[in-house]
């Protein structure tokens, strides 16, 4: 158990940080804390796409590179700081496609150097991925894409709860389990710590990630906000819409961030 600010401090500049998107347990609280600590040169990985937390980190100048299958604010439209940064050329964007990101993480999860994946051939995504390759598949002889194992330095996500043994409950968002398995360190913010041990409870165990894979836990109430958290709280559409409007310009983003990210103790309120 560490504090949110300690957790942010433990993420080194330049780290490859994997983030799930909106609706899949992003830790917006940690993203804000990373912005507060002035993280630099982060390489973000969308698992498998990117949303609010990524746009915020780009706006705050923390990001050198984004590998993702898409970056958007969903109903609130294009991600404004991402879009501006692509246009300005201030971040490197490495495009992927959703199942490829899952497969690259599953390769690391399984301890194999690569995974094959159908599709993709004929897409310019492949033409812009010198790190992906095409082979003739054993058995069928078809041409198939092979993707290298991808091991993030840090996986960061937000879960409803952790238990006293350090297990984390993520429910059906099993991509966060794969992400934790595949990453060197998994940093998890949670709404609360509960007594007991999820692994001893047949009903809770299927939605749990064993503490084996969890490097640190910090409590951050409403840590996914403005994104929805399972059945705990809903999507704050007004908050995101306001962000989308203000973040259209760098100045507008700065104003928004001064109020919503840097204003002291706001997170703890």
């Amino acid at each position: 158990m560490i504090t949110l600010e300690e957790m942010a401090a433990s993420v080194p500049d330049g780290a490859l940080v994997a983030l799930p998107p909106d609706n899949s347990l992003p830790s917006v609280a940690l993203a804000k804390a990373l912005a507060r600590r002035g993280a630099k040169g982060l390489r973000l990985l969308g698992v498998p796409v990117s949303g609010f937390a990524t746009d915020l980190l780009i706006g705050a100048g923390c990001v050198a590179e984004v590998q993702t299958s898409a970056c958007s604010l969903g109903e609130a439209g294009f991600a404004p700081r991402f879009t501006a940064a692509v246009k300005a050329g201030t971040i490197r964007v490495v495009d992927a496609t959703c199942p490829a990101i899952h497969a690259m993480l599953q390769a690391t999860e399984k301890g194999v150097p690569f995974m094959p994946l159908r599709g993709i051939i004929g897409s310019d995504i492949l033409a812009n991925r010198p790190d992906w390759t095409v082979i003739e598949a054993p058995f069928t002889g078809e041409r198939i894409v092979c993707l290298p194992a991808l091991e993030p330095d840090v996986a960061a996500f937000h879960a409803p709860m952790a238990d006293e043994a350090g297990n984390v409950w993520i429910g059906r968002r099993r991509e966060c389990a794969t992400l934790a398995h595949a990453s060197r360190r998994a940093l998890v913010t949670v709404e609360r710590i509960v007594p007991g041990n999820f692994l001893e409870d047949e009903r809770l165990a299927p939605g749990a990630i064993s503490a084996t894979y969890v490097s640190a836990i910090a409590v951050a109430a409403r840590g996914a906000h403005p994104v929805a958290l399972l059945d705990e709280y809903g999507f704050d559409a007004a908050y995101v819409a306001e962000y989308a409007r203000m973040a259209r310009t760098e100045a507008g983003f700065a104003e928004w961030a001064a109020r919503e990210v840097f204003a002291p103790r706001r997170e703890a309120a």
Partner: protein
Amino acid sequence: MSFAPEELLACALARLIVARPTAHVAVGAASPVPAAACWLAVKRGAPIRLSLLHKRSGNPFTEGSRELFDLTGQGRVDLFFLGGGQIDGQANLNLIGTGEWPGREVRFPGSFGSAFMYMMAGRTILFREEHSPRVLVERVAHVSAPGVSEPGVFRRGHAQALVTGKCVFAFDPARGRFILESVHPGETVESVRAATGFGFDVAAGVGETPAPTEGELALLRGPVRDEMLETYPEFCGRVFGRRAAA
């Protein structure tokens, strides 16, 4: 009986859905019109399983966000919907952007799973309301997902059709070419051609896209609306709202 443009589109899509054997449809696009079309097909009695990826409660997947792609890889998704910032005459999709890679001129959000889904779903219906030379281009700036594939590359399905705000095109994967099947009320073959950046064929029996029947409208404004209200409240209010309140 008057109807909204979205209602016409939903009915046109629903006809395409039931035109071929369809056990399972996954709707991943943010657009609510394909979702309405699926519900319409179901409410008319088609024995179709729907996986609505944007549904917050009762999300159909228990293995996280990879399950849709695994499911499609297994061949269990008969039909998927895709759109595109640009769509070209060979049914190539561009969800990346224009200008120098990765979209230095106009950046779209990104490919999502299209580079996989388009090739691995049983078939795909392309849906894009904006029908303009800006969207429907001769050749996309970047191919996110290809309309056709070379021999030796596994591909399960292709575009079945492209439905826009002006018309319905069928797609012939063997020739890599769209065929105009019907024009929506108020459009003509000529008006469609003028608004389309790519060349296409015209079906012998090209006619007008049928208007929704009273039965279809009653289903859309009643049971379909009820199913969609949680996920698409804004859409339901705008398209079905008045009528439902009556």
